[in-house]
């Protein structure tokens, strides 16, 4: 049974993606009998390229992938180089999980409320500094260059890359390396960049690729913060796909393939940049400069991460403020009155989506957890270690759903499901979520699982426990904390999913995320505040349990505090 788990995981992840991509290719070349397309043709592509503003959409999607990733990665590396061991370092490490748990859509709304012409920032400095008595007529959110979109993504990708880096740093013994370089006269931040980063980067390369793919093809954040005329490529594709004129689906499929190409091009360009940086970096690492610019690097690392974390947190506070605001004249920093009215009005319609969200998140997370545990336990029992050849490739496949743009294969998957006669149900949505929850749960759990001292299991076995007994009575309870963290990550990933819910549920399965994003077009800030805050607090509950439950259970077990 256990032996099947890795294969089950791989086929579960790879099968739907390949099927989905295949079913995007066929309609893109005119073949989709259900809609009357029976002969191969290039018409969908001609229609696609005739769309006004397509080049701009493509350019922004491509740039968003590269710029977001470059800035997020730079901030993370500068912070790690400049702040290791400081108070800020400890605070940020504690904030990672809550920051990571904020769904993309909620963070995007928070940013929008902050930087909009009538947002919190403008209110704080008006009219004293700006002289504005009325909100200026500037397109800050939804700007045509996609800068707001990139900013929103950067806020969210920084905690992700930081978490991945911290996990990888466990293997590197960074402190000793830095100590060695410092004894040779290098300032700490320079030392870190010169002796740790070159070994760290290869370990976080796949997460970096995932960020590029995500940022170049994201839909929900782009609908909230992205440009509108024209929108990003992914948003355009969604519009065409949902067009009442079903024949536009051919063009949407061609668009999905184009998106696949854009993301691939962004990845390829990044790869080119990697080569360039490696070349230039080699000279710098051994060039002998030990001190120059250290203070600037140090300051930049601290300031930028504070800016990013602060923006995210103030954004959430802004959501809360808006959800409680009564009458709020423009330059006033605070509303004149507070009211529960928006919450009371939203309450009746919140129940259904919240229940659906939690149900989908719980089931998909438990499925992912079961599969991950089975695969990891199999790995331990067969004594096959991930570094030894075969499983490295399997691990790479885990990243497939994170690197192939969602929009490129989900449409195809919908077509496959329609062809199989499957009706859009909650189960189909759960299956869709599982594709994205599973990799994160596995990645989150695998590190603690593989680092777990094998002697514990050996003690249990030599005391006569069966392998299953050792798993349930020793390994599982001892790994409770990382297990709950993996669950919280899974719940957060599922709660934040927009596109899989929308497409596989055919609009009939509503979650807080689909509801909140749907409100974006309306622009009712009070209502958005309520929904986005609910969306942001659901995953937080998971993380609170993950932190609190082990403390409660092991209050009388000193050896269980701070283990794996």
């Amino acid at each position, binding site marked *: 049974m256990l032996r099947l788990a890795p294969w089950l995981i791989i086929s579960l992840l790879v099968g739907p993606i390949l099927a989905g991509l295949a079913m995007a290719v066929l309609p893109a070349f005119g073949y989709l009998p259900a809609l009357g397309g029976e002969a191969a043709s290039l018409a969908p592509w001609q229609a696609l390229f005739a769309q006004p503003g397509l080049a701009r959409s493509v350019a922004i999607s491509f740039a968003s992938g590269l710029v977001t990733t470059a800035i997020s990665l730079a901030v993370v590396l500068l912070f790690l180089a400049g702040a290791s061991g400081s108070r800020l370092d400890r605070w940020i490490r504690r904030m990672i999980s809550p920051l990571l748990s904020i769904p993309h859509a909620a963070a995007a709304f928070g940013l929008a409320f902050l930087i909009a012409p009538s947002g919190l920032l403008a209110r704080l400095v008006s009219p004293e500094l700006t002289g504005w008595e009325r909100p200026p007529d500037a397109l800050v959110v939804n700007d045509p260059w996609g800068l707001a979109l990139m900013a929103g993504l950067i806020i969210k990708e920084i905690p992700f890359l930081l978490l991945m880096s911290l996990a990888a740093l466990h293997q590197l013994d960074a402190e000793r390396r830095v100590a060695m370089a410092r004894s040779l006269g290098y300032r700490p931040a320079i030392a870190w960049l010169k002796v740790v980063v070159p070994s760290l980067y290869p370990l976080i390369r796949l997460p970096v690729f995932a960020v590029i793919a995500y940022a170049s093809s994201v839909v929900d954040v782009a609908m909230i913060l992205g440009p509108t005329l024209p929108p990003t490529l992914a948003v355009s594709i969604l519009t065409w796909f949902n067009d009442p004129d079903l024949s536009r689906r051919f063009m949407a499929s061609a668009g999905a393939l184009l998106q696949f190409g854009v993301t691939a091009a962004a990845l390829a360009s990044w790869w080119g940049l990697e080569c360039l940086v490696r070349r230039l970096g080699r000279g710098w690492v051994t060039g002998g400069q030990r001190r120059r610019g250290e203070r600037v690097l140090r300051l930049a690392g601290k300031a930028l991460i504070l800016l990013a974390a602060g923006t995210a947190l103030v954004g959430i506070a802004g959501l809360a403020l808006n959800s409680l605001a009564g009458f709020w004249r423009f330059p006033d920093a605070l509303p004149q009155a507070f009211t529960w009215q928006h919450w009371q009005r939203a309450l009746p319609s919140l129940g259904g989506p919240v229940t659906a969200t939690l149900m989908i998140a719980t089931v998909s997370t438990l499925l992912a957890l079961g599969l991950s545990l089975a695969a990891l336990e199999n790995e331990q029992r067969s*004594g096959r270690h991930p570094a030894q050849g075969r499983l490295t490739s399997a691990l790479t496949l885990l990243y497939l759903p994170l690197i192939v743009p969602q929009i490129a294969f989900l449409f195809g998957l919908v077509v496959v499901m329609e062809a199989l006669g499957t009706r859009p149900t909650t189960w189909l949505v759960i299956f869709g979520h599982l594709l994205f929850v599973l990799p994160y749960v596995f990645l989150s759990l695998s590190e603690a699982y593989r680092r777990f001292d094998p*002697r*514990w299991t*050996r*003690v*249990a*076995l*030599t*005391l*006569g*426990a*069966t*392998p299953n007994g*050792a798993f349930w*009575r*020793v390994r599982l*309870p*001892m790994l*409770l904390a990382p297990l709950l963290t993996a669950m919280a990550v899974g719940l957060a990933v599922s709660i934040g999913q927009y596109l899989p819910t929308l497409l596989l549920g055919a609009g009939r399965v509503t979650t807080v995320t689909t509801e909140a994003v749907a409100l974006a077009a309306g622009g009712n800030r009070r209502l958005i505040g309520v929904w986005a805050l609910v969306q942001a607090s659901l995953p937080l509950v998971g993380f609170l349990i993950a932190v609190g439950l082990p403390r409660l259970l*092991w209050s*009388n*077990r*000193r*050896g*269980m505090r701070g*283990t794996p």
Partner: protein
Amino acid sequence: MTDPCLELDLIFDKVHIALHGRTLLALDARIAPGEVLTVMGPSGSGKSTLLAFTAGFLATTFEATGQVRLAERDITALPAERRGIGLLFQDPLLFPHLSVAGNLRFGLPSATPDKAARVEAALSAIGLAGFGERDPSTLSGGQQARVALMRLLLSAPSAVLLDEPFSKLDTALRHEMRELVFDRLREAGLPSLLVTHDHADAAAAGGRIITLE
């Protein structure tokens, strides 16, 4: 409890372990009940490989031939939990999520009648009466080592492997634990294999000594 006619020796019959074609160790030995055979050798001499092989944890990359027999059973191919071989590590490795009593109960076979009384008696026997509900991490190093030994004995093994069990204790404690462990093993009439690089351990064990190169 045991049939006196049954031969209870731990036997290494032409055991030979190699890695990538290179011989690591060869052993042909018989350990009688109550006897401690000491295997000595510098690190890298294959001591831990011998233990892993005997306990059933040898990685598949090693090529092992020969037989290990215990109480007239060939255990070479059995899974670790069915070999009846107990293992005492360098660290006590008390399960941190269980109480002291919970750790001892983990050792007891599931069909044992009146477990609570057995656990209480075991605690008294090592001078830790009333420590049952304590968190193992609040015990001193010596107390933890004693609980680990008792847990091993409660699991009623047919033979015991000792993996440098005293190397992490301070000098005074080391002396005391040596005496306790070897007395208990003799008393229980268990064939034991001690792996160490400390000559004092070997002397205290009082049995034959085999040196690996």
